[in-house]
């Protein structure tokens, strides 16, 4: 069913995949270099997260064809991530609070 139509939608030149493949290596290499050069602190965090998101975006958009999908499905897949975002934010705050009380009240480093 529907095969004739799908072909035109989903078939891309092989070059596209090779390109993305190459880019993924490059970005993986960059994020590896962040560790190798031993950046620390905010720079490390932001670089690692940046490369991570770029790689994730490339895989989802090109390899998983999300770039060519219609908004109806793209939105359904991306909006639920806000719930994860809230969860992450809450747990960051929560774990900092836990850490603080532990540092304050307990014998640490014994």
């Amino acid at each position: 069913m529907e095969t004739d139509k799908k072909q035109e939608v989903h078939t891309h030149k092989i070059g596209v995949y090779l390109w993305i493949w190459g880019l993924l290596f490059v970005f993986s290499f960059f994020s590896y270099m962040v560790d190798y050069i031993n950046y620390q602190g905010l720079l490390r965090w932001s670089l690692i997260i940046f490369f991570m998101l770029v790689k994730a975006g490339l895989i989802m958009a090109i390899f998983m064809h999300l770039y060519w999908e219609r908004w109806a499905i793209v939105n359904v897949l991306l909006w639920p991530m806000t719930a994860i975002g809230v969860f992450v934010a809450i747990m960051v705050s929560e774990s900092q609070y836990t850490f603080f009380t532990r540092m304050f009240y307990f014998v640490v480093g014994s």
Partner: protein
Amino acid sequence: MSQFDLSKLPQGRKGFMHDWGSDQRAFKGVPWGKAMMWIFLLSDTFIFSCFLISLMTARASTTVEWPYPSEVFGLTVFGTSVPLLLIAIMTFVLITSSGTMAIAVKYGYEKNRKLCGWFLLATAIGGLTFVGMQAFEWSKLIFHDGVRPWGNPFGAEQFGAFFFMITGFHGTHVSIGVIFLFIFSRKVFRGDFDTGRRGYFTSMKSDYEAIEILGLYWHFVDLVWVFIFAFFYLW
């Protein structure tokens, strides 16, 4: 039997309104199985997110030093210690297999039986290599470094537990994927997808769209690895 042309439908935001306001299908042009895989992956994303959020919480709230992954996972090659060497190679292997999978899907849609089958097989071998390297990494950690789920010589107790749990869960996903890749490559070579041979269990007709569904799963496994790589190994 496609009576409508996707490209004639409105695109973007208007397309969103149109599709959700329409009858029959909310995801236009998306086969049932593919839609199901997408929603499953969404659910699976929540599983991995919960694992990673738990890792973050444990790590940020423990008062004991968290082991430094780059040293723990370093390898000594020719006398020099290279941090995260094995992990870098594993990442390389997994991304490669993701690339071959994408190409297999492309040939699947072109009904190119031979190339599709070979690329599937290549993907499966890539996945197998990954699992093998993971097994090596586990055994090195367990037998050489003495890391256990309940403790390790480097610092915080949860380090080993989260490592085994998260990579184990991811490795299980990879292994399941590898099994299906082998099965599917056999099916492709046998020509099931051309003849529409019925499945042994489901007795449903085979179709090349199954390759794309498997592809989605495989890319997802790769996607998860990107996050594990960032949050567990590089953090």
